[in-house]
């Protein structure tokens, strides 16, 4: 059974990311929803864990699967790269019917989509993991956080980690 509020929030995020020029694969949606939850303090009711490319929610993955199964979302296949996600005709109808239920989420979703519209997955991984370590230890110094980020993701040099932390801190929700 679809949860209307969760569904409309996901559809809104997918739509906004596409409007902002994002590739909008699952990774993009995952990281955007994580920022919505943790940076904008809009509870998404998805549990995130630290996974391969940074914060990831298996609940969100399951919800996306439900929306694909219900024909509200579809994959747009691109040669060579991971698939993009878009709303179907039924998805657009659903969104039009329930968009009013977004209320206080609407603006933060636009903001997050705007932050990430032009970002590739490597940047998203870096920024989302930076937010993860900040959330994990809010009182830690930037140096400690940068080292922690580097420990979790050894391919991100400490200096890049520091920059990612600064970028995340500077984002105004």
């Amino acid at each position, binding site marked *: *059974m*679809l949860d209307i509020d969760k*569904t409309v929030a996901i559809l809104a995020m997918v739509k906004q990311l596409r409007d902002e020029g994002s*590739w909008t*694969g699952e*990774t*993009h949606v995952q990281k955007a929803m994580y920022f919505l939850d943790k940076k904008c303090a809009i509870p998404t009711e998805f549990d995130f*864990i*630290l*996974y*391969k*490319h940074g914060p990831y929610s*298996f609940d969100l*993955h*399951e919800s*996306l*699967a*439900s929306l*694909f*199964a*219900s*024909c*509200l979302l579809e*994959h747009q*296949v*691109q*040669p*060579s*790269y*991971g*698939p993009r996600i878009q709303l*179907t005709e*039924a998805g657009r109808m*659903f969104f039009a*019917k329930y968009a009013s239920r977004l209320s206080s989420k609407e603006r933060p979703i636009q903001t997050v989509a705007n932050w990430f519209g032009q970002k*590739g*997955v*490597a*940047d998203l991984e870096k920024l989302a993991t930076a937010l993860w370590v900040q959330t994990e230890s809010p009182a830690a110094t930037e140096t400690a956080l940068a080292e922690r980020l580097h*420990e*979790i993701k*050894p*391919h991100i040099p400490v200096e890049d980690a520091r920059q990612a932390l600064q970028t995340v801190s500077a984002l105004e929700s």
Partner: protein
Amino acid sequence: MTKTTHEFRDPIHVFVKLDADERMVINSEPFQRLRHIHQLAMTYLIYPGGTHRRFEHSIGCMELATRIFDTITDPDNLRKLPYEVRNRIPEIERDRFQHWRRTLRLAALCHDIGHLPFSHAAENLLPKGVTHETMTKRFILEGMRDIWAKMEPQPKPEQIAKIAVGEKEAQELLPFSPWERILSGIITGDVFGADRMDYLLRDSLHAGVTYGHFDHNRLIDTMRILPGTAQDDTEKYNLEPELGIEQGGVQVAESLLVARYLMFTQVYFHSVRRIYDIHLKSFLKTSLIGGVYPTDLDEFLATTDNEILSSIRAAARNVSAAGHEDASRILYRNHFRKVYQLMAQDCANNPFALADIAAALQEHIGVDNVIVDDANKATASKSDFPIQADDGRIISAHGQSKVMTSLPIATTWYLFVNPEQRERACSWVKKNVETFLKPGNKNYA
């Protein structure tokens, strides 16, 4: 002289060889318990041959995991891995393959030791936040400590646990190195995991269906460690090494995913199997103390399918026993009957169709006479993986294979009714369902 190598006859893999340490694990109480846990819960009530157990699956998983490991670590198969990706898995330079191969085999053997009676059927009766993987970890880290201590050299239980359950289920053991991630992917991976490969082949064989067949030998032969797929057009490939395949393996990977989809629709999500799961869960909820499975390791070891089946038999014959109704529905095959299954396209017209139809039917024949089952399984959506093209490029499987991206998501979306109300329900469904499925119906305009 004491034998150092032992072997099992296996209906899928023919001979599975193991050493004395592995035999010690197999002879342990947690592992022997798997002889009494049906792999497919009560599926044998529909497919009578489906009586196989987690025991033989775990041994099969070890065999396949080893074959995958040997293929991907073959120096010839590592040659094309770009330096910056290879650099991230220093373990493959250190000549410690024997340590990791052994750890992987032990992890594959143990990957299911935390399974509940009847496998997945009633898994959500564990306390909140506890899964069968949690129990698997606890057995590896606590319950089997004495077994690891007897081995020479001693394996590292944390490594075994991480590789057995994967990153999702081992958050307290983070971080995973890229190498540990690859090894856990060998067992738990969504496409190429030895667990999935073995269960598809084995379940298919025992259920007596051919849906789960695919050429696993060819698939394993084409598996490689590759750079991750580019997720968008900002990168050429991802530096995170992943399990992937050479171009020649695309069709067999497609056949695995088709096999998985078919097994879900024809066996795992068979409507009668689903309703038996529901009756079983309902029975356990009323008969277990507090409605939850025990998580104390000793108590956990004491409960297998045998004990549950005995209590079902006893409860079915005693009208005043807790869970009598569900027990008798299971034992005397008086289960609720499917009267309706929603189709995907109908859902597009009204995403709430199943709930709307269920509510109206409940109004017609009574709330307690209707059960809604609306699970779904994304059998292919998480399946993107890198393919090494013949010209050396790393490309996305989803960008390459229309078969993979076109596979539907397996769903249940069933309505079951009390058998005594079946005729009434069927005629109501025939007369009324269509009105809920048309665009512009009263509930979803």
